[in-house]
């Protein structure tokens, strides 16, 4: 094969390898891009991961929304998990507190994490929590039962089309994998 062609091939391979590596990186870049995209657009129903400051809102008594609560366990996590009420009517702008109960069914220490999710996704940014057990990992002593209050408000700016909002929590047993171990 002549030298000229060899050189041309080598140069082309280098360029193409650059594309290959770039695309491998792009695959990983999709992870933060996805998070940022969802954050900006609020598409995936994630609520804020930290408590928001307790702001003051004008209570809108003319509107009433239904808020539903769903409690579930991932992969049969050995917990009992429920909420004080299954659903409630509420006014935007007013603060409410709802208790959640979780009980460790094992006689060992357990570290568990609850992940919230709101449906419809676009309503998530209007659900503001000032207190929630989901902000941090929960430590359960053997057979311990916890009462965990969630305090929240629905921002009155929530568009008219949202009549029913569902807040779901899933508890994950992280005892094996937690960094606190």
């Amino acid at each position, binding site marked *: 094969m002549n030298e000229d062609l060899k050189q041309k091939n080598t140069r*082309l391979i280098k360029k193409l390898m650059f594309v290959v590596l770039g695309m*491998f990186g792009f695959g*990983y870049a999709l992870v933060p891009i*996805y998070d940022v995209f969802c954050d900006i657009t609020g598409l995936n129903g994630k609520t804020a991961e930290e408590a928001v400051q307790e702001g003051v809102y004008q209570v809108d008594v003319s509107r009433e929304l239904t808020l539903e609560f769903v409690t579930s366990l991932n992969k049969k996590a050995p917990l009992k998990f429920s909420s004080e009420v299954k659903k409630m009517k509420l006014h935007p702008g007013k603060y409410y507190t709802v208790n959640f109960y979780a009980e460790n069914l094992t006689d060992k220490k357990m570290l568990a994490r609850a*992940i919230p999710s709101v449906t419809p996704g676009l309503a998530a940014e209007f659900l503001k929590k000032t207190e929630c057990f989901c902000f941090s990992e929960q430590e359960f002593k053997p057979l311990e039962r916890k009462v965990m209050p969630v305090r929240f408000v629905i921002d009155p700016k929530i568009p008219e089309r949202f009549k029913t909002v569902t807040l779901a929590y899933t508890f994950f047993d992280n005892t094996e*994998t937690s960094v606190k171990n």
Partner: protein
Amino acid sequence: MSANVAAHDDHHDHGPEKGIVRWIVTTNHKDIGTLYLAFALVMFFVGGTMALIIRSELFEPGMQFVDPQFFNSMTTMHALVMVFGAVMPAFVGLANWQIPMMIGAPDMALPRMNNMSFWMLVAGVLLLASTLFMEGGAPAGGWTLYPPLVLQTGDALPFAIFSVHLLGISSIMGAINVIATIFNMRAPGMTLMKMPLFVWTWLITAFLLIAIMPVFAGAVTMLLTDRFFDTSFFDAAGGGDPVLYQHIFWFFGHPEVYVMILPTFGVASTIIPVFARKPLFGYASMVYATAAIAFLSFIVWAHHMFTVGMPVAGELYFMYATMLIAVPTGVKIFNWTATMWKGAMTFETPMLFSIAFVVLFTMGGFTGLMMAVAPVDFQYHDTYFIVAHFHYTLVPASIFILMAAGYFWLPKWTGNMYNERIGKLHFWLSAISVNILFFPQHFLGLAGMPRRIPDYAVQFADWNMISSIGAFIYGFSQLLFVYIVIDTIRGGTGEKVTDEVWEDAKKHSLEWTLPSPPPYHSFTTPPEKIPTEHF
């Protein structure tokens, strides 16, 4: 002049090695092409056997032959073997044989890499097959490998993932080779817009491959670290999101289906003009349509995810973008039809398969269009309707065209004529049975039968039975093809074919100007004249 050029070729002056060693160390494009094609044909039967296990179990409601876990392994492995072991390697095999001959080159640009990418493919597929014998069974969560389900795979998971890595590296090397060959090895006068469409479609496919295989490799690597190294890319407990996997997967997955169909389009555009005895209608528009499809394929991926709970804006965007793909695809169907229009057509086996492709692929395109409508896809999603859709776009399209390519070029490759009567029998059995096999699956899907289940409600019994009967006829008819291939290699009908094999084929593309069978190194002297019939 010719001695002069040959002298440049330091390692090109000897013939093939003797015996089995020839096939292991070969760097010759024809040998490697043959290896790829033979391997793909074997895998076609391995994957086909799995399909027949699936169809046997579904012949009647109730559990008959296999347990559900193994059934699920079969659906998963059938898809992986067919996609990565049969269809993709078969097209790489065709590329190896045909691209150098079609652009007037002596060989592929990177012969040693060519050998390596073939053996890596074999390693990858063997590794994948070995998972069938592992503790916990082969992967059974579907070829899409969705977490969290796929993370429950037993010992097989890391092996399946490494196998995907190997297959990916092999495809990327193959793609780089194709691009280098097309960019750097074209004969003088063979400008880009004079290249046969098969070469064009492969060039675009190769770019698709180097863009998407790394992304897939990344996605499965994330699965691996999620399972073994405590990362949480897709694990909600650690702040990840399983839906993210679906986005990354389909960013690869949708272009991947076009990797399997674009070279199909290329072969069809090569065969139809020869038997219609007309130039291809709208050569330039074919090139642009291929490029447009390739571009669009990157921005429609979430039509596979209409039901994950995307907001309306997202559903609408992906719905319209997906429908847009039907436009360049329609251009192609139109051009093939216009090529045949008022042509002096004859119906040899390759042409029969190509015509069936145009008709049946169009049906697959239409069901695609139906599923592109987001609200109705909520009904079709994950039912047998989608199974019918993609099998219409893959079996009577990609597979039929691969068969057509076999009949079309085997006489060129071997110098012998195949048996036309058995060829036609193969065609008619395939064309009829493929419809008995897949058409009823539309009805099953619309009636609500989910995909990937080993047992079903009795109301689905009749169509499933018919579908299974079609499957067995189709599967066993393919043995005729094996017979014909072997028979043709060993002398065929005994009739020696001419250089151009098919009437006036020389006017369409360069390979027909070479002797049949062509010399071990294709064009050691560049061709003098480039055929321009396809303008």
